[in-house]
């Protein structure tokens, strides 16, 4: 809790400072005198042709899904990376000259990476990474 409390406080301070600045700016800034043309979305000087809220490109969707898979898989590497040095007893294995402990750690990570590579190769073959 004592580690989280300052973090929350930081977020609050950042938000407060930024909101305060904008409020201050609106106080000392010029009064709003707007008209229709000024409020128009910029479209290179033309009147906007049609509404902006349209359908997204499906390609973005694919990339996002790929990201979700790979990034979540990547998350599991971090605990492995931490544990590979301590909990798995690699240091002890190194000092005693035992190769088996290290081999196990290495094989575990390689098996994991191999699984990810299968997914990656599948995506590549399916043309997910081709942007067009």
């Amino acid at each position, binding site marked *: 809790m004592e580690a989280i409390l300052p973090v929350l406080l930081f*977020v609050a301070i950042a938000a407060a400072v*930024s909101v305060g600045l904008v409020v201050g700016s609106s106080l000392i*800034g010029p009064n709003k005198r707007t008209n229709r043309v000024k409020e128009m979305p910029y479209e290179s000087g033309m009147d906007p042709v049609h509404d*902006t809220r349209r359908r997204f490109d499906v390609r973005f969707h694919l990339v996002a899904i790929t990201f979700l898979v790979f*990034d979540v898989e990547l998350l599991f590497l971090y605990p492995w990376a931490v544990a590979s040095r301590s909990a798995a007893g690699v240091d002890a294995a190194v000092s005693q000259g035992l190769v088996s402990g*290290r081999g196990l750690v290495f094989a575990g990570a390689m098996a994991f990476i191999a699984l990810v590579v299968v997914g990656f190769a599948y995506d590549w073959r399916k043309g997910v990474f081709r942007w067009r």
Partner: protein
Amino acid sequence: MAEFLIGLGLPGWLAWSIAALVSAVLLLNVIAGGALVFIWAERKIAARIQDRLGPTRTGGRFGWLQSLADGIKLLAKEDLMPEGADGLLFRLAPYVSFCASFCAFIALPFAFDVVGQRLNVAVFFVVAVLGLEVFGVILAGYASASKWSLFGAMREAAQVVSYEVPLGMCVVVPVMLAGTMDLVTIGEKQAGWMSNWYLFHDPFTFVIFWVYVTCAVASVNRAPFDLAEAESELVAGFHTEYSGLRWSFFFMAEYGSMFLVSALAAVLFLGGWNGPVPVAQLVGLSEGTGDSAAYFVRLLGLGNLIAKATLGVLLMMWIRWTLPRLRIDQVMTTCLKYCTPIAAVMFAGAMFWQLFLPGGLLPGWSRPAGEIREGWLEGPGGLPAAHPTTSGHNVGVAATDPSDSSGLATRSPR
């Protein structure tokens, strides 16, 4: 700080809050001041690269007050919102970007134990919170009701989302080498001579550092990966419709993130706050003891880290004004077909090296594995501090060890 306040008799939560407040204000100054300096530097560097002069008048010489003058001007500007924009999201977006960039600084150590809040998952925290910045950009682009903004936001989303993967894979390598996600400990483990930096740990980490640089430049949207702004094709990209101070928040966030990824690169690969030559350790000062000498050493380390991070930022500026912008499909290809596989192979290589060749290719060159590492970690007094300047495990001492006349002992294991 907090311990000191508790010692004065304050309740715990109040002490922690005051300590956090103080460091938050300091960090805010780092970001705001850093943004001012870097924006000025970028304008001068851009000008020089393009054979111009850049700002010359404001503040007397070199136009060094130019950014401050711009800031005051922006403060007094009108805050416009286009018709048809989503009011709440439009107003919220700059705050999201800025807060994400700011909060990632919490866990960044500037020197030994000089850190807003020491977290045991600091690496994770920094990368994750920095990734939140993209939400601000997407919100801004989507809420603006402008087609330019929407294009910028969509590109940004696809790009940042893709570059998170190789970036995460690069960052996991120092975590693996150090066996911890605590940035303070990771920096601490690279103390000593320059050869102890994780950049020089093995050939794979050397390569993966450059992959990290590429991905970091892409993830903070700097040229040649600044597809989200792309002023020559998308007007101004996601911030086309922004004006005044809200617009400047995006720039504060951008320059804050640039500094942050550079500082992260410094801590993860370039020895953090440890200089190339362990000067303080050679003259027998230690940063972990808590007396005034230790504070001097930490100040030295602060200078070191800021210098390294600044060099990183300058490198990004140099890249920006040298290389042409990539096309969106080239950006995605660079990430998915090059950076990710290279990072994965380098990760496997670094893992192999770490597990099977901890002493390097020629074991006779170095000290037995673990000797130095253990000496650092289990320092007296519980602090993971204490470069054992007196214990003889110190690399600085090892270099002059008469029993090892080869002079190669400086290449010590980590």
